[in-house]
Every structure is written in C-alpha cells, then in structure tokens.
C-alpha cells in the first residue's frame, strides 16, 4: 500500500520514514512510514501491543528511535529538500524564510515541545494534581513567560513586561478553561477533578503550548458516550479554529471514525493499512487484525465484508 496516493490533498506536516524501535530483541515498531497532513486529524489505531504508544514516544522525544527519520515542517518550506538538507547537516533543524524543518529524533525531549511545537497528552493522565487548574495551564506557558520575566530577573524586580505577559497568560488559560467547560473550577486542584474532566484539562494544557501538532494518547479512554461526543466536538474545534493538526491513538471507534480524516493501522509494529476512515473500515487486513482471523480464512472474511 503506497502512502502518497492515499494522502488527502493537504500538505504534509509530519513525515515518519522507516521508523524502527527495538527494545533488546523485541521489535516494537518495524520500519513504519506515514505522513500526517496539515489541518488533518490523523488516527493511529491497532490492537493492544501494536506499538502505537512507542511511535508516540518516538515522535515526542521520550524514546530515541533505533532507526528512521521523523520530519516536521513549520510553514511552507519545501519538505523534501529541507529534510535532506537537515539530515546531511549535523543540526536538528533548518529555517528558511518560508518556514522551518525539524528532525524530531535529533531534538532533546523538551525541545520538541518548546521549538518544534509538538504537544502531547498521556495514556495515564499526567496532570500536576496538587496545583490548580489555572496553575496547570500557566506551567504550560512556561517558556514564553520565562522570556517575558527576563529569565526571572525582570520578574523579581517587578518589570511591567512580565506583569503584562502574566495577564495575557491568565487570559489564555481562562479561554481554554472555558473551551473545555472547566472555568468554574479554575481555582480547584487538578487532582480533585473527575476522570473525564482531567482528560479535557490535559488537552487544554497541551494546547496552551501553542502546538502545531497535538498528539493525543487515547483521549477517549474511560469516557462515557456523552463525554466522547463532547470530545469529538473539542477535537474538531482544535483542528478548525486553532489550526492545530492532531495525531491520536484511540481504541474507541466511535471517536476514530467520526473525527479522523486519515487513519494509519498498526499491527505487531508494522503498518497494515493507511487511508480514509471508509477505506479502513472495509480493509480486510484491518478486520483480520482486529478479529484475529487466520490467513486462510482471510478470503472468506473478505468475501463476507464486501457482500
């Protein structure tokens, strides 16, 4: 299955090429290549243990991939030329007047959020539970606030530049709290929130870093159907109103099929399908992977599905 012709018309934002991750003898991800387009919601699905979270950890810098290249583009820079230029150099990024290209596997973990502007959430929620909701969102704006406080010195002396920046940061925090429907609880500790609210707060926190790409690791896990519906709306709004593209791992098909523009299916670390939700739904390999059908029975299933 070739990737290029499956792509939507949008320009690529993230390009993963031959990504391989080995843990000792275990090959968690095997030569995975896919693209996520700008302005799309790309879903990464697959049975348990397929290597989805490993891919996420490689993209967001928590793992260094054994092999492969992960390119990210800001703006309209020429992706292929740019990628080859960065790869040939020993730098992690290149900037032209049209935009910049980042090689994510070369960036140290925190720079992926700070410079390449890729944000993520976690499968097991990682909020700052002893801090209030608004504090959580303020921590997410650490880097711009740090610059505004002249790396603490200006803030310590009470310069007006920092005070204005802090005010703006609080406004941004209230905007996102409103957006996820948690404004009323702004000054409560994050650890006190019910599970579904914690998930939404984590998304709001990630969005406060102004990402170009937001990676969500099972955002609908543990949500009830009503909350899932709200989540769908939130994800679409992030894509449409904020120009942030999304990459999500999800098991809840009602979310995946509803919101994604493009789906990549993994099984045992290998990509088995790549396409629009409609194409994926009817792909016999995907059905076989999910239902656990033997190869011999595959044809039978295929016939059933197409019937």
């Amino acid at each position, binding site marked *: 299955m070739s990737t290029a012709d499956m792509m939507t018309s949008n320009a690529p934002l993230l390009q993963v090429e031959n990504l391989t991750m080995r843990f000792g003898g275990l090959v968690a991800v095997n030569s995975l290549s896919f693209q996520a387009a700008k302005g799309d919601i790309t879903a990464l699905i697959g049975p348990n243990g397929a290597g989805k979270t490993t891919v996420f950890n490689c993209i*967001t*810098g*928590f793992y260094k991939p054994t092999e492969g290249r992960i390119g990210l583009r800001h703006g309209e820079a020429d992706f292929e030329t740019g990628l080859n230029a960065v790869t040939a150099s020993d730098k992690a990024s290149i900037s032209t007047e049209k935009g910049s290209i980042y090689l994510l596997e070369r960036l140290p*973990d*925190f*720079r*992926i*959020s*700070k410079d390449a502007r890729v*944000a*993520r959430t*976690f499968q097991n929620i*990682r*909020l*700052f*539970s*002893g*801090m*209030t909701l*608004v*504090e959580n969102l*303020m*921590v*997410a704006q*650490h*880097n711009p*606030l*740090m610059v505004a*406080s002249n790396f*603490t010195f200006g*803030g*310590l002396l009470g310069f007006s530049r*920092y005070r204005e920046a*802090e005010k703006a940061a*609080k406004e941004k*925090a*209230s905007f996102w*709290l409103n957006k996820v429907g948690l*404004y009323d609880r*702004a*000054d*409560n*500790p994050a*650890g*006190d929130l019910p599970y579904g609210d914690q998930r939404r707060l984590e998304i709001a*926190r*990630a969005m406060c*870093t102004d990402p170009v790409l937001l990676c969500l690791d099972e955002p609908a896990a543990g949500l009830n159907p009503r909350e899932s519906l709200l989540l769908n709306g939130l994800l679409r709004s992030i894509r449409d109103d904020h120009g942030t593209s999304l990459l999500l791992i999800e098991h809840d098909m009602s979310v995946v099929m509803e919101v994604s523009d493009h789906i990549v299916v993994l099984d045992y670390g290998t990509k088995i399908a790549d396409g629009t939700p409609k194409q994926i739904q009817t792909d016999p390999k995907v059905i076989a992977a999910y239902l656990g059908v033997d190869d011999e029975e595959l044809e039978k299933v295929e016939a059933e599905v197409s019937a």
Partner: protein
Amino acid sequence: MSASSSEMMTANVPKGVNWSYAFKEAFTTAVIALALLCLLLGVTTEGGQNILIFKPARLAFAVFLAFVVRFLVVVQKERKAARLEAERLDAVAGIQPKKRRNWFERAEPYLQPVLFFLMAFFPIVLVTTLGGQASTKWVDNYGIVIMIYIMLGWGLNIVVGLAGLLDLGYVAFYAIGSYTYALLAQYYGFSFWMALPVAGVMAALWGIMLGFPVLRLRGDYLAVVTLAFGEIIRSVAVNWKDFTGGSAGISAPKITFFGIPFNASDEGFAAKFGLEFLPIHRSIFLYYIIFGLAILTAVVTLKLKKLPIGRAWEALREDEIACKSLGLNTRNTKLTAFAIGAMFGGFAGAFFGARQGFLTPESFSFEESVLILATVVFGGMGSLVGVVLAAIVLNGGSELLREATFLEPYIGSDPNRYRLFVVGVGMVVMMLWKPRGLISTRTPTVFLNERKAVSGSLVKEGHG
C-alpha cells in the same frame, strides 16, 4: 441565628465513647509495654557487680505511661470516628454540615503575622523585660540558633519542598559558606559584609556542581549521593590541614559593627555609643543580621514561587515527565533549585562563621543535615510558616532540655542527653497526627476568581 439553631436540633448527635473498648486497648498496650520493658527498665546492674537490682518503680511508671497514652489516643480516635459518622448521616439526611475546624486550623491564618512580630521583636521584648544581662543567653542560644535553622530550613525548602529533590547533604553548603568566609578573611582579609555575597555565590556554584552529576538520579539514589556530598565536604575540611586547619579548626573574625568591634575597649561599640559594655549588644546585632538574611530568603522564595521558575519547580515535584512534554528544561530547572537553595545555605554559613569566630568540621556533621531536613518535613513541605514553627519546636525544644535540670532526679541523668530521643519521639507523634507536616495545605501561586488552599493529600512529595 434561628437557621443554625434548627440545624443543631436536627443534626445527628455523635455516639458516645466505648469506654470498655478503650480500657481493653490500653490494657493490651500496657501488657506489651511490660513485656518489652521488663528487662530494659526493670532490672539493672550497678557498679560492675554481678547482682541484679530490680527497679519496679520506674518500670511501673513506664507501663502506666503507656496505658494512659494509649487510652487517650483510643478515646480521641473513637470521638473522631463518631463525629465523622454523625456528619455522614447528616449528609445522607441532607443537612449541611457545620464547618468544623480544630484549634490548629483556626489559628493558622494568624500564625504568619504573629510569628513575624515574635521574630522581629524577640530581643527587644526580652531586653526590656529581663534586662541586658539575663537576656543574653536567650537571644544567643535560642533566638540566633533558631533563626539560623529557620533560614536553613527556608533554603532547603526550595530544594526539597518546592522542587521535590530530596537533599540529605544540605549542610555541605552551610559549611562552604562558613569556610569561604573564614578562608577569605584569613588569606585576603575580607570583612563579613564583603565575604557574605562571595559565600553565597560559592555555595551556589557548588550547588550546580552537585546538581550536574545527580540530575539523572531520583528518590533514594539522589538522597544517597547528596548525603555523600555532605560527607565529602566535611572530609575535605578535616584532611586539607594546610588550607582549612583540619580538625583543629580555623578562626573566623568575629562580627564587628561596620568596623567597630564589640568589646570593652575604648574603641569598642559600647564606648563609641556611650553605652555600658554588655555582651547583649553583639547578640542583638547578630540576631538582626540573621533575621534580615532569613527575611530576605523568605521574600525571595515567595516572589520566586509566583514566577514561572517557581511554578516550574512545583510542577517538577508533581510530574517530571509532564514537564518535559510541556517544553520545560528540567535540567536547568533542577539546577536553579539546587543553586538558589545552596546560596541561602551559604549566606547562613557565612553568618555562622562570623558568630562563632572559630570553625571546626565537627559543626557540619550529617546530624545537622538531618536536623535541617527534619525542620522542613516537620513544618510541612513547601510551607514557610511551617518551617518557623518546626524550627521553634525542634531546636527551641531541644535547647530547653538544657534548662530542664529539675528533671534530673526523676530520669536519673542529664535531660540534655535525651535531646535526639525527644526529637525522634516528636517526629513519630507528628507523623501520626499530621503526616504531611504542621502546615499541610498549599497556597496556589495564581488564581482567576478566588484563592483556595490545596489540600496536602493532593500535593506530591516529588520523586527525587
């Protein structure tokens, strides 16, 4: 008024205490105490003779004490459980529970101003009431010593309480500050005020030096390495005899009033200001120096807490991985916490040198680190007011044991020998009563509508 009285009528009344259960529990405890202590306290040999002497009185006293303490604890527990049950029933019945706060929680809002005024006017009040001669001991042994521990506690609080990095070698920075002052004075003739900033900078540099190699370590591993660092600094001070004077120590010039010495000569402070010479002048001056330094520490800490760097420290304590995912440079964040915490330790060290006039490595033993850490934990991690209370209770309390000579006939030896024992018992009781320290709530650094305290049970201790 009428609304509250009608609530009182309908609210469930807590059940009474089950006295026989309390007696049974206390009796069991007394039996266990008897079994454990019968050989420890019940018999003794004296004067190297092979004769057992029975001491029934002190055994009985200990067993009785165990009985009474257990009885009171059980009664208190029963009362609390009954009250909670009544409140639960009220909640089921839809009655709004009355906000019930114990004496300590009620006192909390007033603690900060009260403690500040106590600290600010302590020597003045003493001198006016007791006179210059009698109050010297109190200002010197209590005021200044407690103030040093408050400052060290506040400094360590940045590392342990805010950033959540367990540092068992904090005394190393205290030592570096002291020796920086003593050595600069000895070799280059620095005065205290010239050496003070240098001591802070030196300690901060060493904080970064320690910080770099231990950045990857967390929890117990970090604690062990910091402990080792504290011992290394002390060992260097002991063994580098040509430079530091080794175990014999090094003299550090005593504090002067901006060049005017505190002595009885014609050039001394008392003569210049036309006062009668009293040692208290020096003590009061020292007290206000350390008070100023401590207040500086507190103000800087409170300011930093509200800046991005302070929030980053607390976020680091809560979840390091989430910090990385939000683009926080965790390495630099940890290093700044180490450096700033160490800097205040260095200031306190330089002060210590100027106060003592003579330094030996013995002043910077592991025990000191433990005592400083205990102050932070006892007070409630991250709380400045808590550290003050803890320093007063732990250090003031153990100093008071020196005064308690009237106890000598009862316990058979100098009460001061029970110093660490009392601290240990205090810690155990404390951890049972308030496991998160005296002040266990956290005040948010920023708010949108109203500032609500965060319960300590949600705040993490950090993992390294």
